[in-house]
C-alpha cells in the first residue's frame, strides 16, 4: 500500500510541475488516483518515469472505461496503473476523454509495455492512441464491427463472415 507520506510527495511534485493539469486527487482503500488533463498525459507520464524521486519505471496496465451508464463528467476515460520498482509505490492516472471519438496521446515512447495494452483499449473501446506504432485490433478479429466493451454495444449482435446459406 502506498503510505500517506509518499502520496503527498507524488501529489506535491506533480502539482508543482503541472499546476493546471492535476484536476483531482483521491485515495480510496489505499489506492492513490490522480485525475489529469488528457492534453498533458505524455508530459506527465514522462515526468513520472524520469523524475528520480518518483521513478515510475514500470507501466503495469492501460485500460479504457466507458462511463455511459454512470454519473460522470465525460463518456470515456483512459486509466494507467504504474509502479516504481525502486520506491515501491503505485499510482493510478486517469484522464477523461470528452468527445465521441476519444483520442489520447500514446505513451508507447515512454514505456514499451503500453503497446498491446493500448491496442486492447482501442479494440474494445475505440479509443484512438495518437502516434501508436501499430494501432490494430488485438483481441477481436480484424473484420469485427464496433467496440464490444462499450456500454451501448449490443451483445447479441453477430458478425457473419460469410453469407448464410439459404
Amino acid at each position, binding site marked *: 500500500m502506498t503510505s500517506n507520506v509518499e502520496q503527498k510527495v507524488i501529489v506535491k511534485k506533480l502539482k508543482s510541475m503541472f499546476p493546471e493539469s492535476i484536476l483531482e486527487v483521491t485515495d480510496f482503500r489505499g*489506492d492513490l*488516483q490522480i485525475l489529469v488533463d488528457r492534453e498533458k498525459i505524455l508530459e506527465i507520464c514522462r515526468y513520472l518515469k524520469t523524475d528520480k524521486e518518483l521513478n515510475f*519505471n514500470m507501466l*503495469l496496465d492501460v485500460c479504457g472505461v466507458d462511463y455511459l451508464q454512470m454519473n460522470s463528467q465525460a463518456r470515456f476515460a483512459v486509466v494507467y*496503473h504504474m509502479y516504481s520498482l525502486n520506491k*515501491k509505490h503505485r499510482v493510478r492516472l486517469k484522464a477523461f476523454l470528452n468527445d465521441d471519438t476519444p483520442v489520447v496521446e500514446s505513451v508507447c515512447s515512454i514505456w514499451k*509495455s503500453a503497446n498491446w*495494452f493500448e491496442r486492447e483499449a482501442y479494440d474494445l473501446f475505440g479509443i484512438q492512441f495518437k502516434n501508436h506504432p501499430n494501432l490494430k485490433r*488485438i483481441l477481436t478479429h480484424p473484420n469485427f464491427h464496433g467496440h*464490444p466493451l462499450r456500454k451501448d454495444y449490443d451483445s447479441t449482435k453477430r458478425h457473419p463472415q460469410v453469407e448464410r446459406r439459404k
Partner: protein
Amino acid sequence: MTLTVEPLERLGELMVVNIGPIHPATHGTIYLKAYLDGEVIVKAEPDVGYLHRCFEKMCETHPYHTVMPYTDRLNYCSCFMNNVGWAMAVEKLLGLEITPKCQYVRVILNEFNRIIDHMVCIGTNLVDVGALTNFWYAFQPREMVYTLLEKCCGARLTVNYCQIGGLIRDIPSDFDNESKTILKALPRFIEDIEGLITHNRIFIDRTKGINPVTADQAIDWGWTGPCLRACGVAYDVRKAHPYYDYDKFDFSIPTGTNGDVYDRYLVRIAEMYQSMKIIEQALEGLPDGPVTVKDNRYIFPEKENVYSNIESLMNHFKLVMHGIKPPVGEVYSYTEAANGELGFYLISDGGSHPYRVKVRPPCFAIFQAMEDMLPGHMIADLIAILGSLNLVMGELDR
C-alpha cells in the same frame, strides 16, 4: 561435365511459417507468423485473441460472487490463484478483512498451485526441447495436488473454492496430513528433473544464452513473475507488498542473472522449493476458527439452514436475487500469481454487478515483447522460448 548452379534470387524471398493457432508446440491458441531466412527468424508477428471469450464483458452482467467460476478459466493451470485474486479485489472494495484461518488456507493452496503451475511449465517446456521423460515427473505431483483440492471442494481443475469473504467450505479434517504427504513426496520429483536436466549438455546448449533479456528491457516491457526474476530483478508481490501474512514467513526470492531460457528454468525450480518452505510454515501456524467472515451480507448460509429456518432462507434469497452491493468506488488489487502480477481493476457503481472489470494478465505483457525479441533466433529456439514464458492463453486472451 560441369555442374552449374543457378544463383537463387534470395533477396526479399523470405519463407513464412505459420506457427499456430492450433500448433501443438504452442500449448494454446497462439498464432505466430515467423518470417525465415534459412532457419533464422527475421521478423515475427505474434497475434493473440483466439481464445478471447469476453471475460470482462461477462463480469458486467454477473453478480460479484458468480464471477468466481469464470476466474478459474483465466490461468487454468493454477485456478485457485485466480480465485484468490478476484476475491481479494472484491474484499478490498468492500473493506472486508477475512479470517486468519482462511488467509492461511489461501496461502497454502496458493503455493501448491504455484508449484503445479511451474511443474506444468517446466514439464511442457522440456517436452518441446525433446526431454520427454520429465513430463511424467512433472505431472505426477500435479495429480496429488488435484486430489487435495478435490478433498477440499469436490473439483479438481476448476476449483471455485473461494467465495467473497472466505472459502465455500471448511478444509477436510485430514488436510494437514494430506499436505504433508505431498510435501514429503515433492522433492523426489523435483530432484529427478534437476538430476536429468540442470547439468544436461543438450539442454544447456538448447537454452543457455537463448533469448537473454536484460533487467531494463524486462522492466520496460512490464514483465513480472519468474521471467522478470530470471533477469535479476527481485520483484515479488509477496515480498514487496505482502498480503495474507506473507511477511511472517521465512522465504527468499530466487533470481537469475542472464534472463535467458535456462535461467527461467532455474528460477522456477528454486521457487518450488521456496513455496514448499512457505507451505510448511503455514501448516505449522494454521489457526483454528471459521473460514468465512460472520456477515450475512456477503456469505451464503449453510444449505441445511436454508431449508430449515426462515432467516437463512431469506438471507440466501437476498444474496442470490440482489447479490453483494459494494460502495461506489474503484480499486486495483494485485497478487503474485504463478506467472507474475495478476491484477484486477474493479469499478463499482454501487449496484450488484461490477461496472467495469479489467484483468491485468501477467503473460500479456510478457508475450508482447516477442515481436522485438525473436528476430535473430533460430526457429528451433522459438519453441524453447515460447515454452519458457509459460503463456496461458486463458488469461492472456480472457
